[in-house]
């Protein structure tokens, strides 16, 4: 599904090199986790994959089902099935959450040549999905993420993912800021979406999320590279010993 080859990325403005040859393959139906110290380039990778401005790819490629993502507009990547749950979800004053969701969903359907959903159909689906994430009607009506608590914002990201039903989901620290119950809700939301056609790339600092969302593969990222790839036990190792040994080993 997702294939990242020797990806080198620098900041357009400062010319600073952030990703220094990332190699990563996420086959269909699998859940991969990325862990790594602060500042190692995890969010940068997720932004580059989803098409944010400000980065320059100097080498390498990233493909979704064999098609390069890098020349596509962000909206085209979304329509192709890519989704990023932001580490810091963005507030948009003046745009209602429901309007936002509906606009996004219908835009993607249109891009794929599908019929737009009627208002009634849309509302039925969104209410159902919101309920499982304990997002109430009031939150749906409020402007996107404005005045939401940290945990509410993260749940709102998962709601968007559930509505848009992407094939390749990237979750950037969706667990941070969540209380224990909310973490469970979010994990349940993600697990409900798991299917042989859908893949996940879960960026996290904590083993706890991975107790709920069982990864097939764990990658360790450091200084703009994947320095180690292994099974779920790798996350436990990080949890117990930190990154010291792994970093030393890589050097």
């Amino acid at each position, binding site marked *: 599904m997702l294939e990242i080859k020797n990806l080198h990325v620098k900041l357009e403005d400062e010319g600073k090199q952030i990703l220094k040859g990332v190699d990563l393959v996420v086959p269909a139906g699998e859940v991969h986790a990325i862990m790594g110290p602060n500042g190692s380039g995890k969010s940068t990778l997720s932004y580059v994959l989803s*098409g944010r401005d400000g980065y320059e790819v100097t080498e390498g490629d990233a493909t979704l089902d064999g098609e390069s993502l890098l020349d596509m507009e962000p909206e085209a990547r979304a329509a192709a099935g890519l*989704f*990023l749950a932001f580490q810091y979800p963005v507030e948009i*004053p*003046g745009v209602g959450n429901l309007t936002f969701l509906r606009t*996004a969903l219908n835009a993607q359907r249109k891009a794929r040549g599908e019929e737009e959903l009627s208002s009634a159909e849309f509302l039925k689906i969104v209410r159902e999905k919101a309920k499982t994430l304990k997002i109430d009607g009031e939150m749906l009506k409020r402007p996107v993420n404005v005045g939401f608590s940290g945990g509410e914002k993260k749940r709102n990201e998962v709601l968007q993912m559930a509505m848009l039903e992407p094939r390749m989901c990237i979750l950037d620290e969706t667990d941070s800021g969540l209380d224990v119950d909310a973490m469970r809700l979010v994990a349940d939301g993600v697990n409900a979406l798991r299917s042989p056609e859908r893949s996940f790339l879960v960026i996290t600092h904590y083993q706890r999320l991975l107790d709920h969302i069982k990864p097939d593969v764990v990658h360790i990222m450091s200084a703009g590279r994947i320095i180690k790839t292994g099974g779920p036990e790798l996350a436990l190792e990080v949890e117990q010993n930190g990154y010291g040994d792994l970093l030393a080993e890589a050097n």
Partner: protein
Amino acid sequence: MAEGAVLTAQTPAVEGKTRAGGTALAARLEALELPAGGFAAAARRDAAERLQAMGLPGARDEYWRYTDPAPFNAARPEPLAVPGREANLFDDIDRLKLVFVDGRFDAEASDDLTAEGLQIESMAQVGAGHWAETLYGVLEAEGQTPVKRPFAVLNTLVARDGLMIRVTGKVSRPVHLLYRRADAAADVVVHHVIRLEPGAELTLLETGGIGARSNTVLEVDVAEGARFHHIASKRADDARIGIGHVFARVGEGALFKSFALAVNGRVMRNEGVIHIAGNDAVAHIAAAVLGDGNEGSFHHDDTVFITHAAERCESRQVYKKVLKNGAHGIFQGKILVKPGAQKTDGYQISQGLLLDEGSQFLAKPELEIYADDVKCSHGSTTGALDETALFYLRSRGVPKEQAIVLLVLSFLADALDEIENDDLRGAILGRLDDWLTSRAAG
């Protein structure tokens, strides 16, 4: 005595160097057909004297620093092609439709004037002793202190038509002033007077093209406990050059709310002068402005002056301007709190959203406060689109153009929220959406 004689007989006196020359005023007056007699004779004589003392504004007048008065000073406007007729944005709203063609009331094209709680006459029908005599040119004249507004005086002097509307009850059907154009060269001056009796209610809508050049005055007297809502919408070809004035007096416990949508134009200046005279009154004035410099040029100036002269009153000014392709947006807004106007709650916000680097938003917010127990705030911002929000929307699959439309609408939301009625707000939103969507690519 025919008023014309007073006006054209001699060149008016010219005061100071900052005023445009007296010859400009003489030429301006000569080009206008002056109304004779009528119920407003005294007001017009008074206006003649005031205008001759005042002169027309020059580019160095303090209140004309950001907008060149030349297009308003010119003797005649340049002709402007008359656009084809389009569906009106309020077509789905049940309303009393009153039509003006080139600034003249067209009774044939209008609905029947008799409606419960309303007394409506056109200026031409009104004789001496009419109730409007106590207001015509009166609120305008009061609104000349402390800032001179010569084009409003000119309007009082030469306006040949307009409606005199007296509201005696709670009128639920909005009154819609619909302007149409027929003559490409029409230089239109219209003057409306509205009096809401105590406890009365009215919603006034205004749309359409007034003239190649327009000068409008709306004098509104909102008596105790009355409620007045005003919603105006100006399209691209509606008024390439226009100056509009609203003079309001707001009585005890009364409510005045005015909202204007402007999508393009060439040079627009709107002056809002609100005098809050009674305790516990509320006055809000707001505008959403969208300008594209590529359609000729775009220059839109809102100049507002709110006077608090009573206790426990609330005023709000909300101005939002979206500018692209070298468009210019201006906001000059002042809150004056008079001695004794305690517990005043005054708020003012003006914001420019610049869609490119060639556009410009200039704001001059002012507060002048002579009471000690008041709460007044003002803020002004100028900025570009939020790139992070734009990316967030696009990452969810919303195409760039559509994402910009959403963000622009979100920027305008506070101003649109000033429209209380959902149907009317919906109609305005629809117009906005059309404009944005049709221009998203450019």
